[in-house]
């Protein structure tokens, strides 16, 4: 735990506007970055990130000051993104938006492979995508993801496995991996 973080949080709880600004500025890049990555649309991500900060300040009193602040904040961001994605998934226009993605031409370069993986992630269930991004892109351990998504580690492992299978299947359909390529177990 950073003494600096704890002190900053204490000042925020006393409604010090400068402290509030400092906390927002300290974490805004990471929070917004994660929101953009998970939500996709920049404008929507900014709205979600704003809500993340509101939630952070509303629950600052619940932060255990013996534990690091950053993962706690990122867990709130993950949770908020998850709720947003679950709600957006229910809106029919979103499904149409995502279906437009599937008609892009395939290519074989490394950059294109990365692009295809990211597009494939758009089509999987939000919780699969979040688990994938947190694990493979952010390098978070299973325990962190489990805590952030309030699910057992076993569930996270299952989600991740299914997500990889879905991505692999999609790459195969798009011709990025030949039919010869083997399946995951």
């Amino acid at each position, binding site marked *: 735990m950073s003494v600096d973080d704890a002190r900053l949080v204490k000042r925020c709880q006393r409604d010090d*506007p400068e402290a509030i600004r400092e906390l*927002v500025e300290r974490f805004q890049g990471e929070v*917004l970055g994660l929101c953009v990555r998970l939500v996709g649309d920049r404008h929507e991500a900014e709205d979600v990130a704003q809500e993340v900060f509101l939630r952070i*300040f*509303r629950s600052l009193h619940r932060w255990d000051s013996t534990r690091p602040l950053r993962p706690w904040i990122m867990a709130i961001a993950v949770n908020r993104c998850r709720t947003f994605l679950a709600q957006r998934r229910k809106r029919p226009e979103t499904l149409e938006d995502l279906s437009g993605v599937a008609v892009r031409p395939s290519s074989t370069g*490394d950059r294109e492979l990365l692009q295809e993986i990211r597009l494939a992630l758009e089509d999987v269930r939000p919780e699969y995508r979040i688990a994938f991004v947190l694990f493979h892109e*952010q390098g978070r351990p299973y325990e962190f993801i489990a805590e952030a998504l309030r699910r057992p580690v076993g569930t996270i492992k299952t989600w991740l*496995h299914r997500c990889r299978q879905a991505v692999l299947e999609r790459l195969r359909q798009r011709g990025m991996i030949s039919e*010869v390529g*083997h399946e995951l177990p």
Partner: protein
Amino acid sequence: MNCPDFAHKVEEYLDGCKALRTVLADHAAECPGCRELLAWADRIVSLPPPEPTTPAPEWTERVVQSVLRDRRMRRQRRTVAFALAASLVLAALILPILRWTTTPDANPTPVVAENAKPQPIPEQPRESVPELSLGPALRFGPASLEATRNLASEAARQATSLAAGAPGLRPKAEPRADPVADLGRNATGGLEPVVRSTRRAFDAWLDLLPVSTDEKPGL
């Protein structure tokens, strides 16, 4: 290593076991299908982290202002809730006191009701009587007597008006205030008029009062 083994090992590699890379590469060199799977897995494990996104200064300002506004509103709401809770607690404390001063005793009601049952009341030894009704009477004194008297006459008035409005319920005997000594003897035949019961109950209760408080110094 065969291909199914390879697929399992790829899962472990994806889960973070980087040391498996060499073993996997050995099999992939001889197996085109597995080679593609490994290339895909390599891409996954080397995915770049999401880049921190620098927001526009206006966005930061917007967030800070919304947080400040939110905290202000929540503080106000807390204050209102606290004031409301405090008023409720105060009201809960003050109301019984107000009631206490305006209606000195509510206890005579059950005493009257208990005694008003139209059944014979057995003779009781004189010593046991004060324990039944003396407490309230001593505590509230004249005010208690007055309240009981009012209650009895109100009950009598209502009973009379009820009986007047329902001829079928007219009692066999005329209501009258029997002497306490008759208690239990006249209560067996026919419909007992409520007014008589009430008066009897009241008289009986009056009779049970002690002559002076010196008899019970403990109270």
